[in-house]
């Protein structure tokens, strides 16, 4: 591991926490990530020295707050190479961003029999809102199947996309770690006349994102998975689409005018930001984006390739047939997220023993039940790594797994 990455652990105050005499081994970043000082400080500074409303009042502090909030939007736009900062909408989380698309673009453009293509590895946030439109409107869902090693099976893609209006897919699986060929998929969607919606929750925190190069029409992601605070998500959309869509929630901030007989919408981005937004959180995300940019998204990806390779090797060398790691073995198409089955132990029991060593992993269905059914499991253990993890964390995971194995072996 490079020296830079060894040093940056100090940026995350929680990583120095000791519980019951043992250090914290945080391997749940696919769930939610830890926060560096700069993010905590940016939010604290705003709360202590400049907290004020945005877009509403003329006093100096309000103007400063507006600048900070809009500065965060500009930073996020740059981070994903959006052509225009007004195309960046702040939401509550990625789930709300995806629901926003379905409830606005979807309601305006989809009717009975229209086809929406998803994949078999989606998070519930990119399935359930569509199911709701199936129930309400009779749209039809198709799913891109998976290969045996957990990649999208694209052999029938063109047929699946025939007459489709939407292709909505995750850029990286939160369960399998599979990195999907987003650019290829967006192009295929467009060739078929469909729009391309990308759930970027798992890829945006871990690798460089360029919405223009990718060719997406919409991208959704969450602040809390990329060193920013919870309570904030991002929807990016192409201006032409956002302008044409009906509003999402109605209320303050999203209007240009309200009369007794109706209203007119504000311009972007306010049109989709009804009510007082998460101001402090947006400022926190702005700081997170600056932090990640300074380290370099390409460096972060390289670091995680190293972590994925090392942890995968350790797990397979130490446990052999006792461990089944789901997803691709080719690290080129895989992030540092490992879901696995360990012996015949239930993931809950494994994670309980791991907790004795402060090894934090997620045990469960990871909000991807259709995928879990395909894997033939109710639940898996998932260890997910981020920029602040190191080889020792992978070793600690293996040591704790050994303890779990001993604990549950018949005496």
């Amino acid at each position: 591991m490079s020296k830079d990455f060894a040093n940056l652990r100090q940026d995350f105050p929680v990583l120095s926490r000791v519980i019951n005499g043992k250090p914290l081994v945080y391997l749940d970043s696919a769930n939610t990530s830890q926060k560096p000082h700069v993010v905590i400080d940016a939010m604290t500074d705003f709360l202590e020295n400049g907290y004020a409303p945005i877009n509403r009042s003329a006093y100096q502090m309000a103007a400063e707050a507006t600048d900070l909030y809009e500065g965060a939007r500009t930073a996020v736009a740059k981070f994903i190479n959006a052509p225009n900062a007004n195309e960046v909408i702040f939401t509550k989380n990625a789930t709300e961003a995806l629901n926003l698309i379905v409830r606005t673009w979807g309601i305006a453009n989809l009717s009975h029999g229209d086809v929406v293509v998803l994949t078999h590895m989606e998070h519930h946030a990119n399935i359930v809102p569509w199911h709701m439109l199936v129930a309400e409107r009779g749209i039809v869902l198709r799913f891109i199947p998976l290969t045996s090693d957990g990649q999208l099976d694209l052999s029938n893609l063109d047929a699946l996309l025939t007459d489709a209006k939407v292709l909505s897919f995750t850029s990286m699986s939160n369960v399998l770690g599979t990195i999907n060929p987003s650019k290829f998929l967006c192009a295929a969607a467009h060739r078929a006349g469909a729009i391309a919606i990308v759930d970027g929750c798992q890829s945006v925190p871990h690798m460089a994102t360029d919405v223009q190069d990718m060719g997406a029409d919409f991208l959704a992601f969450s602040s809390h998975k990329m060193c920013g605070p919870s309570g904030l998500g991002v929807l990016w959309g192409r201006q032409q689409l956002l302008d044409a869509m009906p509003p999402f929630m109605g209320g303050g901030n999203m209007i240009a005018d309200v009369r007794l007989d109706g209203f007119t919408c504000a311009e972007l981005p306010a049109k989709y930001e009804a009510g007082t937004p998460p101001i402090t959180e947006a400022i926190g995300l702005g700081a997170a984006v600056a932090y990640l940019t300074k380290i370099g998204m390409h460096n972060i990806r390289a670091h995680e390739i190293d972590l994925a390779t090392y942890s995968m090797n350790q797990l397979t060398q130490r446990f052999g047939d006792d461990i089944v790691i789901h997803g691709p073995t080719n690290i080129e198409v895989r992030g540092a997220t490992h879901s696995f089955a360990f012996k015949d132990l239930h993931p809950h029991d494994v994670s309980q023993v791991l907790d004795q060593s402060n090894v934090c992993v997620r045990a469960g269905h990871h909000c991807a039940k259709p995928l879990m059914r395909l894997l033939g499991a109710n639940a898996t253990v998932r260890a997910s790594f981020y920029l602040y993890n190191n080889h020792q964390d992978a070793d600690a995971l293996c040591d704790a797994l050994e303890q779990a194995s001993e604990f549950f072996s018949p005496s």
Partner: protein
Amino acid sequence: MPGLEDLYREIILDHYRSPRNRGELPPPAVRTEGHNPLCGDEIQVYLSVDSGLVSDVKISGQGCSISQSSASMMSAAVKGKPIAEVRSIVRRFKSMMTLEEEETAEADDQNVKLGDLEALQGVVKFPVRIKCATLAWNTLLQGLDEATA
């Protein structure tokens, strides 16, 4: 911090490794299904009720050691018992699984012995696992309500 031994008592591991009353019962036995939405565990409880008795009970499904052993011990505890007593056992067990005093407890419940089930008491110290321990019981209750409706 409570240790693993508080949670995984030997009797629990024993029921986990060799669960009692696994299987299914054909209709007219009542079949109810329970889900733990947090972890995706599923359990099916089959219940035969005959002249006021729980004459047979079978359990199928998948889950962690806590949910599986709790289901196994539950099946052993209620099989062959009168329905009123089964309901008492359920109330006793569920009150053991809560930190607050259960107000629904009835006078007779105190006479009910939980026996092996007491081993699950340690689960209360691990609040996220309480749902695992109570899954089978809530499913059984549903079944009882259906069977006696």
